[in-house]
């Protein structure tokens, strides 16, 4: 028998969409926590959709085409930028359709790209963006009638496709560029810096907006309207203003951009499909015996004990594990910027100081998730819960406390209020201690798994949501717990300058003792459950 010619592979993108939906469904089955997160995600997407629709529809209702020009073009550009930045920084990329999994199937590149693109469109973010931008159609229809509305509808769809294509292409390019572990580690650090600088940038922009005249923004919007960022979002307005000649040109810009992005994506996809090759970093084997194994682990000063080993491993991890290092860097940048931005303007650093202590501690909220089920090693040896908790807190404090001291000094000196340094430091330490007291039990009760992905930005579906919710809840708790101290500092005025530091330290110590005790005992009872919770893919 002759071999039969293999069938032509199907070219429809629908199997990809079905596969994605099925993956989402089976990810939810039998997991109430995931379902809750998913529903929350739907609700938030719904809010975004409705809110966005309302905002974009306003200019049409009030019949102001200048506002419409600014809002649609600037807002649309912001949407596009958001589609690139947000997945990289916060939510991670949904890797349910990981191109590497299709590597062995005989799929033409075109089918694969089309399929993955369509699957990306069939998600909450794309749907809610579409719903929100439909507000632009309403505005265009109000301003220029049905014709403008139809043109805008085409533009909005083009804009949405641009958003999704750009987002996928950029993340795919990153995955390609980040093949080796070292470059991935570096990229995470860079992104942490950028993310930490977003806050300052935002404030600067707001300050600029207060001063700038609106005409400049209108001009900026019209210029953006001729770039891929906002070409799609503005066609309806062009019809309304009678610039019919602009419509085909802008649609051409959108189509060209889309084609270019898809081509870029397909070019980087191949290497993404090969996956992160274990780049043979051969290591400096046999480079001579440098110190004893215990010396390598502990350095010179840490005690040669169980506690010393635990602290040393944690310290190494805060430096060597990318997610932890990113958290430390974010804390450093934000910690210095927040109080400084206030004191430079002559304000009091007090509340901001408390906030710094709070950011410091957030990184511990899912501390067991960082190293995944490697925690099993400590369980097999039988490390008592309190020893585990104390060592982890101690290692974090080794980084956090010196930073808090530096921040307090920097804030006091730049604000010309050196006498406030001890009081502010006391507030920071009090928040840090109260934060530890709250976060340590949370880290035992609410640990969740982070995916061991090839991409540093990957989050399991719903993982981004869990992270965000946990952070908000913990922050609220800490604010409430330290509110009495804040009020006390405010009421006491100058007396606080004297008693702030000792009171803060005492408050922190008490909160830490209670929290670490609760966390340690709870860990003793829940070790297997914690391990199961941080094991990915269960």
């Amino acid at each position, binding site marked *: 028998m002759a071999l039969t010619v293999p069938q032509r592979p199907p070219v429809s993108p629908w199997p990809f969409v079905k596969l994605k939906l099925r993956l989402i469904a089976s990810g939810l089955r039998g997991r109430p926590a995931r379902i809750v997160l998913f529903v929350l995600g739907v609700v938030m997407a719904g809010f975004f959709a409705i809110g966005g629709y309302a905002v974009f529809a306003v200019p049409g209702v009030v019949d102001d085409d200048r506002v419409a020009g600014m809002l649609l073009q600037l807002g649309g550009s912001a949407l596009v930028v958001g589609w690139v930045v947000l997945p990289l920084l916060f939510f991670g990329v949904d890797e349910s359709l990981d191109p590497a999994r299709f590597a062995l199937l005989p799929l033409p590149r075109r089918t694969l790209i089309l399929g993955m693109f369509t699957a990306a469109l069939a998600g909450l973010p794309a749907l809610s963006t579409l719903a929100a931008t439909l507000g632009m159609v309403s505005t265009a229809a109000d301003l220029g009638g049905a014709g403008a509305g139809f043109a805008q509808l085409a533009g909005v769809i083009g804009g949405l496709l641009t958003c999704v294509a750009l987002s996928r292409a950029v993340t795919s390019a990153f995955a390609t560029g980040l093949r080796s572990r070292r470059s991935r580690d570096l990229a995470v650090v860079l992104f942490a810096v950028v993310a930490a600088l977003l806050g300052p940038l935002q404030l600067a922009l707001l300050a600029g907006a207060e001063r700038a005249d609106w005409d400049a923004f209108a001009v900026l919007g019209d210029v953006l309207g001729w770039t891929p960022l906002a070409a799609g979002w503005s066609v309806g307005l062009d019809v309304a203003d009678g610039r019919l000649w602009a419509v085909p040109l802008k649609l051409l810009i959108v189509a060209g951009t889309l084609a270019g992005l898809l081509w870029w994506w397909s070019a980087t996809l191949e290497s993404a499909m090969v996956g992160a090759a274990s780049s043979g970093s051969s290591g*400096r084997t*046999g480079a001579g015996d440098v110190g004893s194994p*215990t010396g390598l682990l502990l350095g010179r000063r840490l005690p040669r004990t169980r506690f010393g080993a635990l602290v*040393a491993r944690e310290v190494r991890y805060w430096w*060597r594990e990318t997610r932890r290092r990113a958290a430390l860097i974010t804390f450093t940048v934000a910690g210095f910027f927040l109080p400084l931005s206030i004191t430079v303007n002559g304000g009091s650093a007090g509340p901001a100081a408390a906030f710094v202590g709070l950011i410091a501690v957030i990184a511990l909220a899912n501390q067991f998730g960082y190293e995944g089920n*490697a925690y099993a*090693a*400590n369980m097999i040896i039988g490390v008592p819960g309190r020893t585990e908790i104390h060592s982890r807190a101690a290692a974090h404090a080794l980084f956090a406390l010196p930073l808090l001291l530096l921040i307090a000094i920097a804030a006091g000196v730049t604000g010309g209020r050196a006498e406030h340094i001890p009081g502010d430091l006391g507030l920071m330490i009090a928040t840090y201690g109260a934060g530890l007291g709250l976060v340590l039990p949370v880290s035992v009760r609410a640990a969740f798994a982070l995916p061991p992905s090839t991409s540093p930005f990957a989050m399991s579906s719903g993982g981004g949501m869990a992270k965000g919710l946990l952070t908000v809840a913990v922050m609220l708790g800490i604010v409430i717990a330290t509110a009495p101290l804040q009020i006390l500092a405010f009421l006491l005025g100058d007396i606080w300058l004297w008693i702030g530091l000792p009171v803060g330290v005492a408050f922190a110590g008490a909160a830490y003792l209670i929290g670490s005790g609760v966390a340690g005992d709870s860990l003793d009872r829940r070790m297997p*459950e914690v*391990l199961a919770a941080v094991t990915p893919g269960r």
Partner: protein
Amino acid sequence: MTVPAPREGEQAAAMSLYGLVKRFDTKLAVSEVSLEVPAGSFYGLLGPNGAGKTTTLSMAVGLLRPDAGRAFLLGYDVWADPAAAKARLGVLPDGVRLFDRLTGPELLAYHGLLRGMDAATVDQRSRELLDVLELGIGNRTMVVDYSAGMRKKIGLACALLHAPRLLVLDEPFEAVDPVSAARIREILQRYVAGGGTVIFSSHVMEVVERLCSHVAIISDGVLRRHGTLASVRGDRSLEEVFVQVVGGRVSTGSELAWL
């Protein structure tokens, strides 16, 4: 069902499992597994993929809480008196990450100090283990950059470091190259000859047949056969017994004719 009470103070069994049960969602992963591992034995736990080997061993060493049943290591109840049981135990888990952002020597030092050993002993034994397993004493590569086989070897070194009385190894030969596998076999045989007990899981018949004094066959979460190698094998080959017990298909010769 009644669980037989453990006999107090008896040291004949290095590991005793009584009616262990584990359920994941709706799937019964391990169903009432009871097993005695005699001290000084080289025990092979055989089973196809997904049979429940890892789940059983995880419950036996205190990593996974059983839904029912009890586990004793060297006479100590793992879930009632974990500290005593774990102190005499070395484990190489499968599918579990190591603290892989440490280098090999750092990882060994970490394990040694966590076991409460003094620094000089840790250093001396770590150097020997790194040398014997050919991992490089001065190797500054982080474990995350190790190959799969090297990871198995550093994991084994961590399990051996405190000279435990009982070794529980989950798939110790997977992804290990033949030369290293021979070295590991040799180390384990010497360890058993010196009075230690090894229980390891595998689905490679040849390794089990060559090494083990006892075998147990598990499939679909149920313990199908157990005992000395001779009694389980009878006069057939272990593979024949295994395929028959596990219920693999017997080829009729007519399938896949188009191939």
